[in-house]
């Protein structure tokens, strides 16, 4: 069930659109903000509020890279795997993350602290390689500075 707060925030979004279903993306964002991911149950609940079928909403939810349809850890690492980061050696940073956290793409560490995901070009190519944790951007990366960055996220 959606909380009153979630419902209220979604209904606020309705005001900006000519019809409710147009707020589908905003609604998914609201729920993910509160719960970190969007479950099947949430899909049903949101769809009902928007007046569309759960399948319709899921076709939207699964289309986009930043909506999580599986549980994620407390912190989500998005490492850029696009061309400039590739040229500048992001693979060594990735390898360090995989070795250090013991997880690969799409996995969450057993303590629930980190989920590791690839992301398309972060638009900071003159400072490649780059990654993002919970929306915070880190650039000019080398494997040796990764641990001190991870420390900030518990």
């Amino acid at each position, binding site marked *: 069930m959606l909380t009153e707060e979630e419902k209220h925030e979604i209904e606020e979004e309705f005001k900006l659109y000519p019809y409710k279903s147009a707020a589908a993306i905003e609604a998914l*964002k609201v729920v993910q903000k509160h719960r970190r991911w969007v479950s099947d149950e949430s899909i049903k609940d949101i769809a009902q509020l928007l007046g569309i079928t759960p399948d319709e909403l899921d076709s939207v939810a699964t*289309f986009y890279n930043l909506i999580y349809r599986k549980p994620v850890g407390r912190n989500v690492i998005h490492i850029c795997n696009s*061309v*400039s980061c*590739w*040229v500048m050696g992001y693979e060594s940073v990735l390898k360090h993350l995989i070795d250090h956290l013991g997880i690969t793409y799409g996995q969450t560490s057993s303590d629930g602290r980190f989920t590791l995901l690839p992301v398309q*070009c972060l638009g900071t*190519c003159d400072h490649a390689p780059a990654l*993002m944790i919970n929306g915070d951007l880190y650039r000019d990366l080398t494997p040796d500075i990764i641990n001190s960055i991870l420390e900030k996220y518990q």
Partner: protein
Amino acid sequence: MDDKPLTKYIRTDQVPMDIKEYEHSGGYEALRKILKTMQPKDVMDAVKDSGLRGRGGAGFPTGMKWSFVPMGDNAPHPKYLVANGDEMEPGTFKDRLLLESAPHQLIEGMIISAYAIQADIAYVFIRGEYTLAAKIIQASLAEAYQAGYLGKNILGSGFSLEMYVHTSIGRYMCGEETGLLNALEGKRANPRAKPPFPQSSGLFGKPTIVNNIETLSNIPHIMNNGGEWFKKLSLTGEGGTKLYGASGKVKKPGLWELPLGVTLRELLEEHAGGMKDGFKLKGLLPGGASTDFLTEEHLDVNMDFTNVGKAGSRLGTGTIIVMDDKTCPVGFVHNLEAFFAQESCGWCTPCREGLPWVQRILNAIEEGNGEMRDLDILSYHTKYLGPGNTFCALAPGAMEPLQSGLKYFREDFERHIKEKRCPWRS
């Protein structure tokens, strides 16, 4: 007069000016002027005269695009203006700077543009990963409302405009004009059939203009200084300056505002400082992932729409991606095609099926499992995923680095196949 208008309001620390500082530096004067002295048509004509072409990649003349919007008392309303800040083209990092460091310039440009087409509602569409940009634009919008530049009856002119931020949730197709409109309507970002064009039937079926962030950021300056001034800013007459960038193994990767039409050589050797010691130039993409490779022989090409076109590529976003001699061209193209295959929206068959096939072949070649006939299959794809065979421009864009990669680096592809390994990997 300013020869670097786009970055004129950007401080060296890149912290954005608040509205007071922006006004003190001459900001919102263009808006005040046009609301007092110009009709929408005058604004449209001034933009036409300037020769401004879209900075989102395709280079469509901005004034002409606007002129397709129905005007007058019988025009459908609400009309919409959308600033395209999706910027997901790999290797592109120019709109980020304008969003994060010159927010009021964009907002002023959008209000003037909205006035020209008599739009009622405007959106700043920002990709989800640009969290700082969204925060800054949000705060600047609040300031602009407070100052009376947005909302009802702006500065007593009778013109009203609401402006919102939409933060996206990640998909390259959100940057494609009609995919973006579907995303704004809460749908999958599949493209739409054209016609009808968005100018007559766009967001929620109403007339809509989508312009790139950099395009719109030019508008206040054109209003202040005129079309002739704008044309003279460029070296080759196409009008204006351009945010050019360079990434890869160059000495000084970065972003610079330069006259439109600087040579590739000046960009690479002067501004980017040349190649890093120990690295040689092998090739480069002049304007993002979906542009054809250029090589050393093209260094004297002027980086404008016409001349890069003549050289067999596209200006695209103007941010070059440099490939050095220690980087494997097959691996480079494989990385690009993996991106395109993932970001294909799946709407049409050639792209949905073709791109993963291309990706797998490139992977096989890179791994030493390629065969000579794979090169023919790749060439075949560059034709059948090319312009006119797919629903939108994603697939043809994806084929540009592949077809030119096969042309310029054919020997390297063949070496992988003959030696059954990647010669760049030890």
